[in-house]
């Protein structure tokens, strides 16, 4: 099976996020960049399927030079090839523009299955996978926690958790799956894997190579524009109830809930 995994590089969740002076983006100088955790689930699942059925795993990333580190990490985990769309005109697009770039980058690549993270942890947009499946005209199976390939490799059966239940879907291949937490526990890039990854093929593409013009991709090709970013409101300090006995504290608590919080 030929499996593709789309990878977005996002700020490490431990990074301190600060809004830049323009008010529409974040300061990137001190940020550590990592592979979107949901995309890691995709890489891991693709590798597990490959280990079982044979085939090839190709990872795709769009963005500046730093994105190569995330692609190499996926290669170190065990992916076979990487495609890097390294073109400023492809960066910063909305979900649809980004999906167009991804669709363009796989136009000459055979595939049976595509994985995307169900969302990226930076902008929480959760639409690229859906848009890509639409552009490629293949079934979309979103927010998935279990993947089973049929013995004849013609179909995929998946599970999606919903409130109190599990939905089971089946679709013919090729199909696109967006991954949810719980799908698997991604492996670490082993040290021998890191060394092997150095020699694996990584091809850099420009928009022209994908058959796209600048007005179809990146900022220029986007229908959404960011008007502004604001930090979440600061949490007010908590209140510790002082009192000699539990009874006394309880009385004060009830009084505060009634008179100050006004919830009882």
């Amino acid at each position, binding site marked *: 099976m030929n499996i593709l995994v789309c990878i977005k590089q996002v700020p490490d969740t431990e990074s301190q996020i600060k809004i830049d002076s323009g008010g529409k983006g974040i300061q990137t100088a001190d940020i550590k960049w*990592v592979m979107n955790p949901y995309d890691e689930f995709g890489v891991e699942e693709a590798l597990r399927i490959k280990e079982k059925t044979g085939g090839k795993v190709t990872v795709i990333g769009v963005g500046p030079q730093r994105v190569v580190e995330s692609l190499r990490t996926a290669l170190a985990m065990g992916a076979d090839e990487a495609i890097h769309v390294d073109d400023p005109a492809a960066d910063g697009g909305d979900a649809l523009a980004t999906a167009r770039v991804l669709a363009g980058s796989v136009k000459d690549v055979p595939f049976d299955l595509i994985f995307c993270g169900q969302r990226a942890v930076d902008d929480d947009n959760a639409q690229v996978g859906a848009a890509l499946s639409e552009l490629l005209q293949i079934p979309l199976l979103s927010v998935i926690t279990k993947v089973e390939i049929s013995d004849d490799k013609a179909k995929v059966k998946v599970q999606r958790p919903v409130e109190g239940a599990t939905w089971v879907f089946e679709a013919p291949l090729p199909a696109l799956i967006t991954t949810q937490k719980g799908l698997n526990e991604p492996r670490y890039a082993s040290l021998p894997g*890191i060394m092997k*990854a150095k020699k694996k093929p990584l091809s850099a593409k420009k928009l022209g190579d994908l058959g796209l013009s600048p007005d179809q991709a990146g900022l220029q090709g986007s229908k959404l524009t960011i008007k502004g970013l604001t930090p979440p409101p600061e949490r007010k300090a908590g209140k510790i109830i002082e009192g000699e006995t539990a009874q006394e504290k309880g009385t004060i608590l009830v009084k505060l809930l009634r008179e100050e919080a006004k919830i009882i």
Partner: protein
Amino acid sequence: MDFSLTMEQEILRKSVRDFAEKEIKPKARELDEREEFSYETCRAMGELGLFGMFVSEEYAGQGLDYISYIIAVEEIARIDGSHAATIAAGNSLGIGPLYYYGNEEQKRKYLPKLCSGEMLWGFGLTEPNAGSDAGNTQTQAVLDGNEWVINGSKIFITNASTDITAGVTVLARTGIREAGKKELSCILVETGTRGFEARPMHGKLMWRASNTSELYFDDCRVPEDNRLGPQGEGFHQMLGTLDGGRLSIGAMGLGGAQGCFEMARRYATQRVQFGKPIASFQVNSFKLADMAMEIELARLLLYKACWLRDNHKPYAKEAAMAKLYCSEVMYRCANHAVQLHGGYGLMKEYDVERFYRDQKLLEIGEGTSEIQRLVISRLIGVI
């Protein structure tokens, strides 16, 4: 000058960091408490590729440079000293001498299993009466026909008495030189050889989840071919091994100091007294500023020493300096970190307590701080 690490080194750091946080951190406190060596985490470290990092792929190693090895030790030490000790001793002292001084047959026989982490190997240098004065080794090996007969004992030997220890390299007297000086050679002794016993040592202050042993040799016979390299080269082999080993102890100091700093910063920015986080008091922020500065200096010195080694330049002086400085930086960082934690820092419930104990070894093991100052004094030509 270029201070940036390669992309591979950055990926390695992140991978080892994730591994240490997810696989070692949840178990470290309990293993320390029970004074237990974990075969499970040891196997996982082997699978990640943490053994045989600088060994060429020909002998099933990872073929990485020394700086990559040091980064890996640093990242494990940031989470737990015992596990870092298993890795540092496994590579520098167990695998190192076999790889650098072993003959083809010895390398083929032992290295693949050691590099996968399936087996461990010890380095028997220190004796009850020969610590800093390693040249005064009492353990003796006498050639009888085509066998060495070994008698004597060793102490404080890491990784030598686990269930997966395949053997040890033993430094022994093999004769007297013309000027009456002892001739020392290294000899390989496999676990299970008659007359050889490795006994685990318990009741340790630090590194409680690493394996430490006493070795006893009582008319222990091994083939003459078990000699490592030429006869009489033992002392030089030991010095060479320790030069490299010092870098890994330095990495333990650096990683441990980093761990202490992060715990201290987190606690001091959250702990509120007099209505403010205690980090906002200058007396405390200055402690954290000093820690951050010294860790930066320690990292520059240690990485430079590794760079010298990777570029085949003399590095003995810088290795001794890095070992000494990183150990002492961790001493100060552990001390500040416990102080910032106040009463809680004295409790086993907080990891910083373990770091405070684990630090002490670094000023004693693989050459005390006093011996490092002696080595540096010699290398700057003042004694």
